């Protein structure tokens, strides 16, 4: 049950964080640490790619909300890439699909 996190900072000002695996109470701290690290290194536009995520619950949502809040406070933003119906559903039932900008591809997120 390990969470895979890959960071691609080759396309500034964006940093793409691709997440793989299950995001829950056991693994969300790892994602949070990565977002904290990126924000403290000065990253502004962070794109979190959730298409490799098999499971996401409210703990994961909390980490994403925290990341978005922090980056917006630094004049940046955190946007998402997600096409999986199961994961999109978690955003929809919490209404968070209206708080986050959710793209269908990484390219769209980089362009948007």
């Amino acid at each position: 049950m390990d969470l895979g996190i890959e960071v691609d900072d080759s396309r500034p000002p964006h940093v793409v964080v691709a997440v793989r695996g299950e995001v829950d109470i056991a693994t969300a701290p790892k994602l949070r640490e990565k977002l904290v690290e990126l924000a403290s290194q000065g990253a502004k536009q962070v794109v979190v790619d959730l298409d490799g995520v098999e499971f996401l619950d409210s703990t994961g949502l909390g980490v994403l909300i925290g990341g978005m809040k922090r980056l917006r406070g630094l004049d940046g933003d955190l946007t998402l890439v997600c096409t999986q119906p199961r994961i999109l559903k978690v955003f929809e039932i919490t209404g968070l699909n209206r708080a986050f900008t959710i793209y269908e591809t990484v390219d769209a997120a980089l362009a948007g």
Partner: protein
Amino acid sequence: MEGAADRVLCLEIPPRAEFVAVARLVVSTAAKSRRALADDRVADLTLALSEACTNAIEAHGAKEEADRVTVRVDEDDERLVVTVEDRGPGFDLMELPTHPAVTDPNRLNFERGLGIPIIRNLVDEVTFTSDEGGTTVTLVLRCPPSIAGMGPDELLELEDVDLEAAWDDEVTQ
């Protein structure tokens, strides 16, 4: 759960984060093996269970309590019932803070409080029973009876590996 329900399965885990994934696998395997459920409904139940387990484990952390959290799966003809029982400090559902709407920018100051709304949205019924001795969350999924005509014995027989017989019967040259 009252009435003529049968125990499918029981899991007692330490209140530790890494066991939430275990509870998810246990409950989703039980749901798939016992009921003819669409994948989506199994996923809904699994997410609701994950939220309930996470809360149970967090409750133990707050109380510094090393007791077990118990996850049970029961069923009757109409329902699959998942129960999560903890020995945490309990809480009052009526006293939970209400958060700003998600469209309100202030909503982003609250990273918590999403679990119970998610549970309510995903299962057909949810009951919280809580006092200082702990909390029991009961998740109910209404669904057709157990996989038709297949009791545990019959299913097992289908999957039983009689290697000799299989080769001898099925391969003819």
